[in-house]
């Protein structure tokens, strides 16, 4: 490859590298968001269980 060809290729590769770097950074962000969603989902599930057990405790009173 001549020097000119090397530099031209380098220019195009720089663009590619930056775009790929963006993708990498973004995939980390998506992973973090996924984790947060899972945490929130657990919290919500925990919140739903408590009202259920409270309703179960109240049930025997009504029966008797």
């Amino acid at each position, binding site marked *: 490859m001549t020097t000119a060809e090397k*530099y031209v290729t*380098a220019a195009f590769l*720089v*663009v590619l590298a930056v775009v790929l770097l963006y993708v990498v950074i973004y995939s980390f962000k998506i992973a973090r968001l996924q984790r*947060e969603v899972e945490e929130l989902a657990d919290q919500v599930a925990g919140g739903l269980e408590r009202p259920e057990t409270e309703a179960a405790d109240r049930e025997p009173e009504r029966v008797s």
Partner: protein
Amino acid sequence: MSLRNRPGPALAVSALALLMTAVALAFYWVPNDANQGFSQRIFYIHVPVALTSYACFIWGAWKALRLLWRHDSAYDLESYTAIHLGTIFGILTLATGSIWAKISWGHWWLWSERQLVLFLILFLFYCAYFMLRYSVDEGPRRERMSAVYALFGVVLIPVSFLAIRLAQGFIHPTVFTLDGPQMTGQIFFVFCLSWAGLLCLFAALYQTELAGKRLDRSLRELRRSMAV
């Protein structure tokens, strides 16, 4: 605007197709430039990237204007995302321009190349935009100040360009510039292809990044309402 929808692969696929074709054509099909030879082919990536960067800043400023007009917070993230991508494309403009300068004139930087100097000024300006956002607490105040600054930025583009032209009157005049080719049919076609591909890339990245930012904000709001 259709860009408000959930991100779909259509724009990304278009970007991929257009850019791959453009790069292939730029390397194998287009004739060599009479004056500069092979090195002039950087033009096919440098100038479209620069034009896309301007488009990003203008889009961001448009969203900023809508925010100030309609007082709708949704425009803040859109403006921010556009300017963020504009800055990334701006960095690419500086990088590709620098490589072109090196191969053309042997220097990594040319003060006589107006487009490059303009991008340097814009780069400084929009970095300050991010500093502004980071140093103000989230809220309508930050949104409005960012919007105002984004509008100043887009007005600065032509004013700075004029300033740079005037400055060349008293700063050591040199003949080092990065010239594009004579726009014959083939060259114009590949140039347009490349630019279209980059605009699609911007649109695809914009949708993705915007979706991510909106998701982030929704999650934070959800957390806050659950803590109550």
